[in-house]
């Protein structure tokens, strides 16, 4: 590894392999990697590994991929042998792009990365047959809902940040007051004031689309889509669907936003595997925790889960996942269509396991019950 140009190639190939496996490395990181390598003992493989981890800024969630690629691709002594003959075909567990079969024509590129290839039949073998036509949400319902939401959307943005911004009312802002006074020869003719900024909430919605939720899921999801469109926080809100797997819907919505709601929903039902199939809440939420929690949920985020909590799976992962979500989010709301019934008790096993980590359990059987949700999304 004495020839510096060899080192450059080596690093470039390694970085490309990382990128191919979804680790975000750009040119400036590569440059950092190179400067780091010139400073350390290149003969010490462990040191090279540590230096690259620091200089390429490898986060814990990318560490497994990094370690595996490093083991395979970074030989201790390259010399003249070009190392990465097989580089592009190295599969890494869980992170590689789909490789089997040609991509289906007509599918969104964004879809490719979020949709697992449909290899797993899940609970319900007839799931695919059960995709029903979209006729339950009437156009009149949708129109009424959008009008209502436009009116209510303003109520969303009411969280007060601790950040101060100039304002007509509020506490006195010395810095600006003094500035103004100088313009008047040192006389405080008027005082500048400041107040706490208003902050947009971030929303993360997790919608259960399993069979038992089917009559409700489309309506609830429609509600969330409309909410997302009228809310100013569109860019910071995320929607996921789950039943036996977790699917991030946000990329679809970006491309489909101007279309009519029903068309969007129709398209979703076609794309989500197992729409109206069985459900595995725990596994799906655990997957959310593993892959999305760090990135998409912070102290400003309200997490909304839409589900009836009827699950046949193991409840231990569910409780763990709920605990992790609850500890990170600003608030966790659980919307349960069954809760609309006066006699409802949250006794379903999954629901009971999740309940300690839910800030509020709310009914979601009609539009009126959803209206009550809005004030909870902020404040």
């Amino acid at each position, binding site marked *: 590894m004495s020839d510096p140009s060899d080192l450059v190639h080596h690093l470039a190939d390694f970085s490309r392999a990382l990128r191919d496996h979804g680790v*975000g490395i*750009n040119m*400036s*990181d590569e440059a*950092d990697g190179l*400067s*780091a390598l010139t*400073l*350390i*003992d290149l003969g*010490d493989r*462990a*040191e090279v590994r*540590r*230096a690259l*981890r*620091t*200089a*390429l*800024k*490898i*986060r*814990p969630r990318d*560490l497994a991929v990094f370690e595996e690629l490093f083991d395979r691709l970074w030989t201790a002594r390259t010399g003249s042998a070009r190392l990465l003959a097989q580089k592009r075909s190295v599969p890494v567990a869980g992170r590689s792009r789909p490789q089997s079969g040609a991509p289906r024509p007509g599918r969104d590129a964004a879809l490719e990365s979020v949709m697992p290839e449909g290899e797993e039949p899940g609970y319900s073998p007839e799931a695919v047959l059960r995709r029903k036509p979209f006729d339950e949400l009437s156009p009149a319902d949708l129109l009424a809902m959008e009008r209502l939401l436009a009116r209510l959307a303003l109520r969303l943005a009411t969280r007060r*940040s*601790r*950040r*101060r911004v100039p304002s007509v009312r509020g506490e006195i802002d*010395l*810095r600006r007051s*003094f500035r103004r006074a100088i313009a008047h020869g*040192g006389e405080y003719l008027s005082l500048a004031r400041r107040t*706490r900024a208003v902050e947009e909430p971030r929303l993360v919605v997790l919608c259960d689309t399993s069979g038992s939720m089917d009559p409700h899921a489309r309506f609830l999801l429609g509600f969330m889509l409309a909410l997302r469109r009228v809310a100013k926080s569109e860019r910071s809100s995320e929607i996921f669907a789950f039943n036996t797997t977790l699917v991030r819907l946000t990329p679809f919505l970006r491309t489909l936003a101007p279309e009519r709601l029903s068309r969007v929903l129709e398209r979703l039902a076609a794309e989500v595997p197992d729409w109206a199939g069985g459900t595995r809440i725990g596994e799906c939420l655990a997957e959310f925790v593993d892959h999305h929690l*760090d*990135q998409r949920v*912070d*102290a400003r985020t309200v997490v909304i889960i839409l589900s009836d909590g009827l699950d046949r799976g193991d409840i231990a992962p569910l409780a*763990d996942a709920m*605990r*992790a979500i609850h*500890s*990170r989010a600003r608030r966790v709301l659980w919307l349960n269509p069954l809760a609309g019934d006066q006699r409802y008790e949250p006794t379903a096993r999954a629901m009971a396991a999740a309940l300690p980590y839910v800030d509020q359990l709310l009914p979601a059987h009609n539009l009126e019950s959803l209206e009550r949700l809005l004030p909870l999304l902020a404040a």
Partner: protein
Amino acid sequence: MRAEIATLQEDMERLGYIADPAITTALFLSREMRRPLLIEGDAGVGKTEIAKVLARLLSTELIRLQCYEGLDVSTALYEWNYQRQMLRLRLAEQEHKSADEIEDLIFGRSYLLERPLLRAITRREGPAVLLIDEIDRADDGFEAFLLEVLSDFQVTIPELGTIRAEHIPYVILTSNRTREIGDALRRRCLYLYIEHPSLEKEVRILRARVPGAGAALSEEIGRFMQALRRRRLSKAPGVAETIDWAQALLHLHRDHLDRETVEETLGCILKDQHDLRDLSGAALDPVLAEATG
């Protein structure tokens, strides 16, 4: 291994910080490449401590900026001393000074209150260690501002002009990862993720920091902590908690762990009421068995 990295490790150990090679390599690179080091990891794994040790190692001043939501430029960078300026202004009027003279007077360096960031770049005696603690608590806006300061190490104050760094400070940023740090800031820094220590490392830390605890008790404490972190906890205890606990046990004159002792002092290591409830009474026994067995 590079000789300097090995030396750094010994030096840190001499000051009571048991560093593994990942930490020393990152520190070494950050020092050589003159780049800020962003350190992430759970609370209590010793992120802040690194900056403190580094300052002692370089015999320089540690300047600390604790971040919080709403942190703004006037707390982080500089503020004019308005009251003094006002007084001077009134005096100057009686002295019949011209407007320009007055302005020069009251916007002088002596009326400027230096906050941590400005102090770090104006320090004359040599580079300081600047610790920007818990950056994840500040808002995104502040992060963008910080990026600017950390890129150029110069600050523009409208009334004074641009102040360039006398010496570029060693910068360490820490984050508990309550939110993701923006890509731009992360790219500006080198990166280090610290995990909870291995048993061997944790016992060495204990021996260095609480020598009075003795080898046998330190080993038991270490094994107990390792066993504890393997459970599902909402808030896994860090090394800071281990050290607190060992000190508490020392004050109570305990030389080994039994159920009663652990129950009395569990509050030193578990700070979450769910965890405390889950691990009370008989639930402690399997953890204890792992520690003492």
